[in-house]
């Protein structure tokens, strides 16, 4: 079972990295949160019986862990146990403009509240209202209301001169 799990996580680790990136600013915190999410996923893996999509299950646990877990604020700490390259925003993509825009997007998202970050992330991941409602625990109509508010807020945060957000 452990092998199946590690394979599953390795293939879908992008989800966890994205959650870590929007909830933690520094590498040490990201590494800690990554570990914590993996452990929570592992604990819950046995009870996961394919009732929902793998991604929905992973988002649910990752967001629950990121929002409810307590992490002491750390100064930039060198994480020695794990390689840290994977926590960085893409650095080999030749398109520098792409990188810059992505970094600005992450910065803007981090300025939102914890719940708003979860909502916008699920939106950006193209999740349906139904899946978002399932993960967040609110009704689909309220997902729509919340999402509209968050979109407006995000537009205000992202500098119009950089992106020309209308």
């Amino acid at each position, binding site marked *: 079972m452990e092998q199946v799990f590690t394979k599953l996580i390795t293939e879908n680790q992008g989800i966890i990295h994205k959650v870590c990136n929007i909830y933690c600013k520094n590498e040490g915190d990201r590494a800690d949160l990554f570990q914590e999410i993996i452990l929570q996923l592992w604990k*819950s893996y046995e009870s996961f019986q394919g009732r929902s999509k793998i991604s929905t299950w992973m988002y649910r646990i990752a967001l629950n862990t990121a929002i409810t877990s307590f992490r002491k604020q750390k100064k930039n700490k060198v994480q020695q146990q794990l390689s840290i390259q994977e926590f960085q925003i893409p650095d080999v993509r030749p398109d520098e403009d792409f990188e810059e825009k992505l970094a600005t997007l992450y910065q803007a998202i981090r300025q939102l509240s914890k719940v708003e970050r979860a909502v916008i992330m699920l939106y950006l991941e193209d999740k349906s209202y139904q899946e978002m409602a399932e993960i967040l625990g609110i009704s689909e109509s309220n997902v729509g*209301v919340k999402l509209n508010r968050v*979109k407006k807020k995000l537009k205000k945060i992202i500098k119009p001169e950089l992106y020309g957000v209308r």
Partner: protein
Amino acid sequence: MELDELKSLWQNQQLVGKAHSEQDIQAILKQKTNPILKRIYDKFFLEMGISSIIVACITGAYIYQQNYALAMMSILVSGLIGSVYWLIYKQVNINFSLDSLKVALSKMERLFNIYDKLLKYVRYMLGIGFCIGITIGYFINKKPFEFNLKFFVLLTAIVPISIVLSYPMKWLIDYMYGQHIQELKGAYLELNDLEK
């Protein structure tokens, strides 16, 4: 740039560099972490375990002395306390796999409320315990409370000390977890306000 373009930007990002290998993930599974929830739940079970041992010893002593009424009473009281503990645990234990964000936050909120109330009750517990003790003693012995000056002086000293000590405890909890608790409460209220 429209939000749809941000969506495309988001979806086209790649996690380059050294991604975690299966060996890395397996290494993480072998590591031990100490998150706040685990500490609270561990403390919870530790308290239950120690209480059970103490009650078992007291009950055993009463049975040895053939004082079956008190033995029965300590079993009943411990059963009652154990049930309360279990009910609280069921209320606050987060199932990360099944609970939605709102449910997880409401459980956390409940947990902090319970701890907050417990801290307040601790301040007055000795006084309340004293009154309960007198009442139970009266019903068992069928005779009124006999005034004991030394005992009374000791109690009147312990009660204010416990009240005074509860304040640094409250300060310590606020200092260590205050910000996190406020953030959680904020997130909880944000989701609940939406429902209203």
